[in-house]
């Protein structure tokens, strides 16, 4: 440790005798890490793990692949196991606190006041009720091109089809919503539309005029999308930019 060139100057008091730390000198942080209680144990664990890791790597035939992504094993899976075991606990909690309902037995002759599928099909059910939007064609003498029901099925296909082609429309390296305000606002529009169309599917239970409800169903999503776009643009220009500057330096957007 001791450096001969400096030991003889030990008595200097003007401050010039201070030796700048070289690579061998432990920093204060390291010293602290190595000397006290739990942090010392941590340090020892890290050392041990580093050593064992090195041994394992040396004896392993695992070839690192050049994939620009986050490894599923062990990172993602261990993290996910920790989080999702909590979530599975939540399923048990919900199952024990809010057990499901069993209604009256099926009776074809008695139409119930509520005819609804489960909640996750509301959006599809709402699209089936879009009859009023089915255009009357002048060429066919005011007749509708297809039955209202068929129109609803087509609407479902259009929505699912649009979602399916999104990866072919939106390319590039942008990942965060702030990097792609347009597509993020399209997403917000879609989410809000899923909600409004679900509400529209329950139109007989909503205390609103059905024409007004239909208008709102199609007006609210673009408004929400526009707000999201404005917010994301502002964030991009503003403080998020500072936060991400390092990131942009590393991976400039195409």
């Amino acid at each position, binding site marked *: 440790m001791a450096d001969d060139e400096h030991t003889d100057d030990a008595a200097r008091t003007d401050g010039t005798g201070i030796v700048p730390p070289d690579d061998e000198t*432990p920093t204060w942080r390291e010293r602290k890490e*190595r*000397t006290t209680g739990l942090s010392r*144990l941590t340090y020892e664990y890290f050392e041990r793990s580093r050593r064992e890791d090195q041994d394992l790597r040396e004896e392993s035939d695992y070839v690192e692949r050049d994939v620009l992504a986050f490894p599923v094993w062990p990172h993602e899976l261990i993290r996910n196991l920790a989080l999702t075991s909590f979530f599975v606990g939540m399923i048990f909690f919900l199952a024990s606190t809010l057990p499901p309902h069993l209604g009256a037995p099926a009776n074809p002759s008695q139409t119930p006041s509520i005819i609804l599928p489960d909640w996750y099909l509301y959006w599809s059910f709402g699209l089936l009720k879009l009859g009023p939007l089915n255009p009357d064609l002048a060429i066919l003498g005011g007749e509708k091109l297809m039955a209202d029901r068929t129109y609803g099925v087509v609407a479902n296909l259009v929505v699912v089809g649009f979602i399916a082609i999104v990866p072919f429309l939106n390319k590039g390296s942008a990942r965060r919503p702030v990097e792609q305000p347009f597509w993020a606002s399209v997403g917000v529009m879609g989410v809000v539309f899923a909600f409004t169309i679900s509400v529209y599917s329950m139109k007989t239970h909503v205390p609103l005029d059905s024409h007004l409800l239909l208008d709102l169903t199609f007006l609210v999503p673009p408004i929400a999308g526009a707000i999201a776009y404005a917010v994301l643009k502002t964030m991009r220009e503003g403080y998020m930019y500072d936060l991400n500057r390092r990131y942009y330096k590393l991976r400039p957007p195409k």
Partner: protein
Amino acid sequence: MGDDERGRDVVVPDRLYKSVTVFSTLFAVVSVVLGFVALDTATNAGRAAPEDVNVAFAALGVGLIAAGGLVYAFSSRFRASGMAKDKDSGDEPSDNG
């Protein structure tokens, strides 16, 4: 080790420290849970009228809970070498720095 105002601190070997942690925690958990079970049984889950409470059983429950806590607290005085009790007293030199 020594008696200061923060309580006694006994340094034990690492292996013994593990035993202390494992067994005292196990004992504490089991006896506290059993204590609550006993207390629940004695008081019919807190719904029994005061005169219906099985006093002996209730006392056993409280005693078990107290014992669990006591063992847990007592075990906290044992430390492995190198584990400082608090950050301020971590000034002692060590040979691996």
